[in-house]
């Protein structure tokens, strides 16, 4: 079937996406969040190419140096350049957060759409399972999963991703359920569209706004949780320059070289701040009613 296009006169003068974009740009905090996020993502992609020193290179003549022109964030107990390690660590810390939320969103959205489409017992049982998952505080669930799977990067992504699944499922299910009653879904079925096509072409798009909003807002929490797990020794292990792990090993030197704690701490806070401001902005732009 060809896509139908409206004649120009019928089309609204300003599209909804245009209006959302304008609303987004009007909020300075949202734009600031977008810029912070963009900087962090660029650093994540460029990573190893922009570090002033090789991140693993040790210099035992320059251990625990305070910040200076040669080492803008100082050096750690092995004489490694902290800034270089932070830059490379972006890939781990942001990567885990992004990976976890993407995983949670993918599974949750598929599950939620399935609930709306199949309904009945599947929907009922699914939502009860979601209730049970909600009964556990997120970080506890993540710790329990790590206790079973063991520490490590992949397991942190799985653990942190897992506890956003029920929320994504709920967010997807609501609008999809409403769409099920719409005529266009019946029409699609009447012309012989298969279940998968209806679920992912016709139902899922109606749930996209809440999914996008929650996705961005969730990344900050996911980065925090992943860093917390590494800090507790349950996530990425040293000498990997993950921020939470760097902070944990730096705490031993807090009274002589506070930069070992301050530098990764500021990196985490700033990255989370960026994603939170961006998420708030996107929420207000896409759906002003969700505003709190």
């Amino acid at each position, binding site marked *: 079937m060809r896509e139908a296009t409206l004649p120009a006169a019928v089309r609204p003068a300003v599209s909804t996406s245009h209006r959302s974009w304008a609303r987004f740009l009007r909020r300075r905090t949202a734009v600031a969040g977008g810029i912070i996020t963009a900087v962090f993502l660029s650093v994540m992609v460029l990573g190893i190419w922009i570090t002033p020193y090789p991140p693993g290179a040790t210099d035992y003549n320059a251990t625990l140096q305070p910040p200076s022109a040669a080492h803008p964030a100082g050096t750690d107990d092995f004489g490694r350049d902290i800034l270089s390690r932070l830059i490379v660590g972006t890939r781990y810390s942001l990567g885990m957060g992004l990976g976890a939320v993407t995983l949670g969103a993918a599974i949750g959205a598929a599950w939620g759409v399935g609930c709306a489409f199949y309904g009945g017992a599947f929907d009922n049982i699914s939502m009860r399972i979601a209730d049970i998952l909600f*009964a556990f*505080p997120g970080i*506890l669930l993540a710790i329990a999963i790590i206790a079973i799977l063991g520490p490590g990067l992949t397991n942190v992504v799985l653990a942190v991703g897992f506890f956003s699944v029920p929320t994504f499922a709920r967010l997807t299910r609501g609008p999809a359920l409403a769409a099920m009653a719409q005529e266009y879904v019946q029409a699609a079925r009447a012309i012989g569209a298969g279940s998968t096509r209806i679920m992912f072409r016709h139902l899922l798009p109606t749930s996209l706004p809440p999914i996008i909003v929650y996705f961005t807002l969730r990344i900050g929490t996911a980065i925090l949780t992943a860093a917390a797990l590494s800090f507790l020794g349950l996530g990425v292990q040293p000498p990997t320059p993950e921020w939470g792990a760097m902070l*944990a090993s730096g705490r031993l030197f807090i009274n002589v070289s506070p930069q070992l*704690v301050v530098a990764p701490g500021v990196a*985490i806070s700033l990255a*989370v701040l960026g994603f939170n*401001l961006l998420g708030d902005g996107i929420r207000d732009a896409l759906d002003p009613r969700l505003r709190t």
Partner: protein
Amino acid sequence: MIKYLGRRLWQMIPILFGVSLGAFAFIHAIPGDPARLLAGPDATIEDVRAVQSRLGLDRPLIIQYVYFVRNAFVGDFGRSYRSGAPVREVVATHFLPTAELSVTAVGLAVVVGMGVGILQAIRRNTVPDYISTVLSVTGVSTPSFFLGLLLIYVFSVDVRWFPTGGMGGVRHLVLPAITLAAASAAVIARFTRSSLLEVLGEDFVRTARAKGVSKRRVLVRHSLRNALIPVVTLVGLEFGFLLGGAIVVETVFSWPGLGWLLIQSIGFRDYPVLTAEILLFSLQFLAINLIVDILYTALDPRVVYA
């Protein structure tokens, strides 16, 4: 009300069932055979078998689950692998410190959060409002372990006002409580501000002002009461969130609570203690949610549960 309470408790049964199933699955998903762990590294196959039958691990899974639930009901989770003491005692000794810390933190978060939020709403778009907004956005984004270490650096290492960790008098409680409360206080402040602003724009507030009710009375009697209802739900949610946050904060400050115990138990693969803790944490979480719903009726006569 009693009918509602009964129904809520009734509804909790399938959730509790699921939670118990989850905890039971947790024990069996753990890599390694607990009997082998208990019997020790030099045990013969006969020794392991003996431990298995003593623990009932050689019986069908369903029977094991029934025993697990029955024992859980009376708080019997076996003995800690690490200390050999009954799990119930181990968990009980670490319960009070967590209660002390989290209740203090919730109190602090509520007082500071609501106070700041109310002030922000009254003095909307002034410098204090902007500063508070920036602070609360930063508060939500700062990881508790970072904030905790910063506080230790400033107040324990530098000026030595408070101890770096451990439990003792009130002085030991100050830094961990502030650390744990910070993020929640920020969320509560933001929410209180927007909730109160919304109510202040309502018709009945304008009417009250128009008929000459004093400013103070409009705020306290007419606006706050309505504005705080949604805040109560949030406080409940934050309490649950705090229980999770306590795991991290207790580790930073070596506070001997349940969270600290949890991390220690993972390190020692002390699975009986872990299982009991997971159940306990979930029960607390469920209980808090129930209490919040009940408080809701007390605060808002319009909400009637049938």
